[in-house]
């Protein structure tokens, strides 16, 4: 087990699968789909091996692999996993088979292209989470855009081209400045005028503190790229368009994994590399995060389109994640990391659910529905669990995450974050309002069947395939909600490391809970 380059296998197995899929005749759709499902399941099983062989006691990167790529320029293929990336990798590998299973029942045009693109996307996502070389990270980060662009643009809704371009341009605009910042870091590493000794290796760059006069600039460049990706208010405007136009599979991946790239980037790069600048920016970012929480929730309340509602709820939820990250306490940061996973599960599931009902009714307007719970009891039951997770009801994973974030934020007295925690707490209530109100209007009350082109559509309950897609997510939602320990354990060491470093900078002393769990 230990000799296998398991991370490289994880990253490149999907790409290999995509290349093989290129040679499968497009007429043989069942085999293409089976190939994608099988391959993504193998990747998931491999990642389970990662879960069990992971050593939770250390904050060091594990299972590192390093190969020379462009050594003359200090570029290495360097990957490794720690407590921060572990869960996100698993989230990705866990969702991909479900997405493939779902698309097997719902998407029937250009199956070959779909399979190839999604597998390439999986490679890019896993590579982004596992890369420990800044150049490598950037390559995967940009590579991610291309398949997603096609997913939205080819299989999307009416305004798909606009949404796809907007998604691409927004993300690209943020990331090119990050590239310049990465290059600046590169030229700061090593000695002398030449290129010898300089490196893009994250671990090496982290060892040498960045001078404080340079930090704000580089932090800003990185933060802009990540803030657009998260997306933080006011850079969120691409998100509703992309989500509404994307096909269900695209929305799920976008919400569950791609948005996490932003928050992951803050945690992986911005905080450890530029601690002073991050500390200085923390109040501003926390303020913007809280604005995002409230604003996202308010706008979600006003939506008539279910998918848009879920999209805006993401803005609100990721505000929580950002607030927790920049509160710097052990609890808040661990809550944030857990909440990234939770949001991936609950919002991913919500997009699945909205997609399932849209396929039946060909409308997503809340007002077109009524009494759905009576027509589709299984759908309503699963929807209820996922909704409770999304609004953070105790017993679900959402509660654990939001609770840790709020407690942790409240404890951040050195920066005076208590008011933020209070306002964010109000955001939880707003979250309950928009979700419950939607539930009340669509699921309860008198039965109202949506009318399309003059005739009513009879809603049928979920198929076994659809239940099969949702069941694992729901189980995980409840599992994390009741027993989050194995998840928190594996993240504790890495988070403590970052948290202690940040606490030192803001002058609150190291966290006392370092080994408490």
């Amino acid at each position, binding site marked *: 087990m230990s000799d296998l380059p398991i991370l490289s296998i994880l990253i490149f197995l999907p790409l290999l699968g995509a290349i093989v899929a290129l040679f499968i005749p497009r007429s043989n759709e069942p085999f293409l789909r089976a190939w994608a499902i099988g391959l993504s399941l193998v990747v998931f099983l491999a990642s389970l091996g990662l879960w069990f062989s992971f050593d939770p006691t250390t904050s060091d990167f594990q299972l590192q692999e390093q190969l020379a790529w*462009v*050594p*003359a*320029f200090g570029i290495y293929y360097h990957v490794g996993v720690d407590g921060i990336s572990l869960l996100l990798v698993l989230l990705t590998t866990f969702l991909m088979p479900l997405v493939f299973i779902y698309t097997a029942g719902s998407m029937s045009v250009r199956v070959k292209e779909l399979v190839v693109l999604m597998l390439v996307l999986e490679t890019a996502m896993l590579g982004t989470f596992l890369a420990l070389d800044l*150049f490598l990270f*950037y*390559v995967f980060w*940009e*590579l991610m*855009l*291309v398949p997603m*662009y*096609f997913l939205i*643009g*080819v299989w999307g809704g009416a305004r*798909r*081209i606009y949404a*796809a*371009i907007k998604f*691409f*341009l927004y993300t*690209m*605009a943020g990331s*090119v*400045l990050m*590239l*310049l910042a990465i*290059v*600046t870091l*590169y*030229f700061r590493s090593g000695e002398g005028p030449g*290129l010898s000794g300089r490196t893009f290796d994250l671990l090496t760059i982290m060892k040498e503190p960045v001078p404080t006069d340079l930090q704000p600039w580089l932090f800003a460049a990185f933060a802009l790229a990540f803030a657009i990706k998260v997306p933080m208010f006011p850079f969120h405007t691409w998100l509703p368009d992309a989500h509404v136009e994307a096909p269900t599979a695209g929305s799920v991946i976008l919400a569950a994994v791609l948005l996490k790239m932003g928050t992951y980037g803050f945690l992986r790069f911005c905080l450890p590399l530029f601690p002073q600048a991050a500390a200085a920016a923390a109040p501003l970012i926390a303020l913007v995060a809280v604005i995002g929480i409230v604003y996202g929730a308010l706008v979600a309340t006003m939506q008539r389109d279910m998918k848009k509602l879920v999209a805006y709820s993401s803005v609100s939820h990721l505000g929580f994640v950002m607030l927790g990250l920049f509160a710097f306490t052990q609890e808040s940061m661990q809550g944030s990391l857990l909440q990234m996973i939770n949001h991936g599960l609950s919002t991913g599931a919500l997009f699945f659910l909205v997609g399932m009902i849209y396929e039946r009714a060909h409308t997503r307007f809340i007002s077109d529905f009524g009494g759905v719970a009576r027509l589709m009891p299984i759908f309503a039951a699963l929807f209820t669990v996922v909704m409770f997770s999304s609004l953070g009801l105790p017993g679900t994973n959402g509660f654990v995450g939001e609770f840790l974030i709020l407690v942790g934020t409240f404890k951040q007295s050195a920066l005076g974050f208590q008011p933020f925690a209070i306002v964010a707490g109000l955001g939880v209530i707003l979250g309950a309002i928009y979700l419950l109100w939607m539930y009340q209007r669509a699921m309860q009350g008198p039965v109202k069947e949506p009318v399309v082109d003059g005739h009513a559509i009879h809603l049928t309950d979920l198929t076994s395939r659809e239940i099969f897609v949702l069941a694992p997510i729901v189980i995980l939602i409840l599992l994390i909600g009741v027993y989050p320990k194995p998840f928190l354990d594996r993240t504790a060491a890495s988070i403590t490391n970052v948290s202690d470093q940040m606490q030192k900078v803001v002058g609150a002393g190291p966290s006392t809970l370092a080994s408490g769990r």
Partner: protein
Amino acid sequence: MNFTLPALDFFAIAPLLAMTLTGCLVMLVDLFTPRRVGKGHLAVVSLVGLAVTAFLAAWSWDYSNPIAFGGMVAADSFTQFFNLLFVFITAITILLSQTQLEREDFHAGEYYTLLLFSAAGLMLMASATDLIMVFLGIELLSISLYILTGFSRYRLESEEASIKYLLLGSFATGFLLFGISLVYGAAGSTNLGCVGNALGGRSEFAIETCPALSQATAAAATNGHAPAILLAGMGLLIVGLGFKAAVAPFHLWTPDVYEGAPTAITAYMSVAAKAGAFAAVLRVFMIAFPSLIADWSGMIGVIAALTMIVGNTVAIAQTNIKRMLAYSSIAHAGYILVAIVAASQLGAQSVLFYTLAYTLMNLGAFAIVILIGRRGEENELLSDYAGLGYRQPVLGMLMSIFMLSLAGIPPTAGFVGKFYIFSAAIQSGQVVLAIIGVLASVVSVYFYLRVIYLMYMVEPARAYALPPRAPWALAAAVFTGIAVLALGLYPIPFLDLAGASIPFIS
């Protein structure tokens, strides 16, 4: 007046001779071929000549006595790098020309001859270490290109493009000559090494017979300020060379000429003429004017910023793919200028690498443009690309690779090239220029992606008949496509090659 003939080392210019002789040979073979035989063998003769040229260029990579003909030309690795590049471009252009030669009934003999002569001009530009030789190279290139541009003689736009190119190009040549004469007036020599030494440098390219300096220049060299006459000369050189490289604000001819010229010639011009101009710029500014960097880096920096902004923004508004690629090529010249402003080892290395990457992706894109056209139906509008990805999946995929590479998305050659250019800019402290550059390239993403979304996300407005088979052009497109990915995934050998090809920059 004593006049001694300098040593004539013909081995030093062997590749150039081979190229020129190939051109002459093609002309003769054409002359003695009866009309009914057909002209297919002329392409073979040209390609064999190119192979010989390439062999000679590789053979003289480490030529023992690089400074030849009394300091007029240099046969160093820089020269050979560009010689190989020009041979490659010319060969691909010949492959791309096959369909059009057939379709539009060109006179193949003249066509190949002019192409080979223009390549000889390019080789002269890259090897020149004297301003007069730079001028000769540019003229040989330009005059051949003026004619080639007008080769589609039944198409009015082609004629118009040719005349326009000729008129504006002549003006540019005038500027260049005037600049050369001013530099000569200030430094007393047209030899790049002598000019460099006159300005306080110690160039290896200087010949023994460098003239004594005028007092004004000598004084200027010691106090570090260039005399006005020299600044004016330098500025005019920038105008002249900038015209050939199509950088803003000397780019106005580009879209019309690129649109009007036969597509294979457009492909050739857009990569070869630019590469030649930048080779000359590197030589002139890094050998003759390195001590005046404070004066020219600002000038070229402004031009670079303007070029990137104008090229990328105006490209958005285009509806014809050749015009779009014309503006795109303007923008790419801007990126290369950024690397020149960096004026460092890394900068020069990235100029060479980017030139190679740009050559591959642009030739590839034009190959696709040629491949989707038919007799009487050029399909040059962007809207003609609607649905191409499903109509012709291989072409669609290749075009996507070229567009993504031009946009600078990994893992392609274009990304690696831009990465090195902006790295060089950051290293030299040109942060503002780097920021303008990356933001301009974000703008460019819009119009490159438009081609992709047309190909894959838009239904065609009318039915398209499949174009006839064009195996040579297809081979060129496939080859460049693979090369674009190879350079993006494993750039090391090419970076090393570029690094080994700049002996005069330390």
